[in-house]
């Protein structure tokens, strides 16, 4: 049987590729892409802010899909995928919640405003913090997996609301897509795409690590069970 708790050479290669693409993204952001005329250098926060937001949303989409798959099949692998992805999603949405106000302070002269995009993002963060707390609770494991899967499906409802909030209600937040077209200089768009690729690779790298940890934990619990039987 393949030991899924052991990460092979592929994981290390992915780590190196992620580091190289991250270096390219940083070069493009700080040395290559032109400075935005109105906001100046602080606009460069945008590339990683959007990159981390993309991964936050994508991670919760994976939680949503894996949760549905778990409820349908009851296979442990889906539960492990959802758990690892949710944790990464929380880390990345935390980054969005941190970098957003730093940008807002410079662009709008305030750290926080209760405008729809910011408010719905904060709600999303609270939803997945609650999800992680459910995962950490001392509940019977199958019951916990089922509850977390339901939470993961319902919680995802907020993701399209966050995404569409600037289209329907927001007054301040910049528009990236307007009338189906990118509202961005071509060089800025290329830089943004490299940043998004960087964080996508980082997500896969962290997901592999998170899933391996869960597989090791499962193996530990299985051996503990066998030992208990032998001692009884």
């Amino acid at each position, binding site marked *: 049987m393949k030991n899924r*708790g052991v990460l092979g050479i592929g994981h290390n290669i992915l780590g190196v590729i992620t580091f190289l693409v991250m270096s390219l993204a940083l070069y493009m952001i700080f040395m290559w892409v032109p400075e935005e005329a109105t906001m100046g*250098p*602080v606009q*460069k*926060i945008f590339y*990683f*802010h959007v990159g*981390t937001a993309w991964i936050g949303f994508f991670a919760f989409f994976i939680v949503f899909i894996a949760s549905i798959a778990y409820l349908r099949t009851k296979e442990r692998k889906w539960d492990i995928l959802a758990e690892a992805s949710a944790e990464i999603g929380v*880390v990345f949405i*935390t*980054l969005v919640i*941190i*970098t957003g106000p*730093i*940008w807002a*302070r*410079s662009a709008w002269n305030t750290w926080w405003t209760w405008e729809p995009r910011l408010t719905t993002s904060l709600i999303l963060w609270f939803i997945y913090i609650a999800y992680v707390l459910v995962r950490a609770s001392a509940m019977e494991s199958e019951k916990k997996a089922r509850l977390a899967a339901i939470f993961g499906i319902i919680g995802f409802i907020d993701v399209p609301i966050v995404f569409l909030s600037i289209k329907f209600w927001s007054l301040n937040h910049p528009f990236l897509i307007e009338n189906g077209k990118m509202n961005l200089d071509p060089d800025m768009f290329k830089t943004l795409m490299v940043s998004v690729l960087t964080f996508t690779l*980082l997500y896969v790298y*962290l997901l592999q*690590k*998170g899933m*391996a*940890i869960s597989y*090791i*934990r499962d*193996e*530990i619990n299985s*051996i*503990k069970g*066998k*030992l208990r039987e*032998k*001692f009884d």
Partner: protein
Amino acid sequence: MNYLFAAYMAIWILIFVYTLYLGHRQSNLTKELELLKTALKEKSR
């Protein structure tokens, strides 16, 4: 410029701490697993 620095530092620190935390957790669990495997082998003898 200070805001730009603060934002990128926050990103690096959090990603670095989280990656380190995962690595630490993985290595601790691997050690525990090896110990348990050894204990199980000895018990099976």
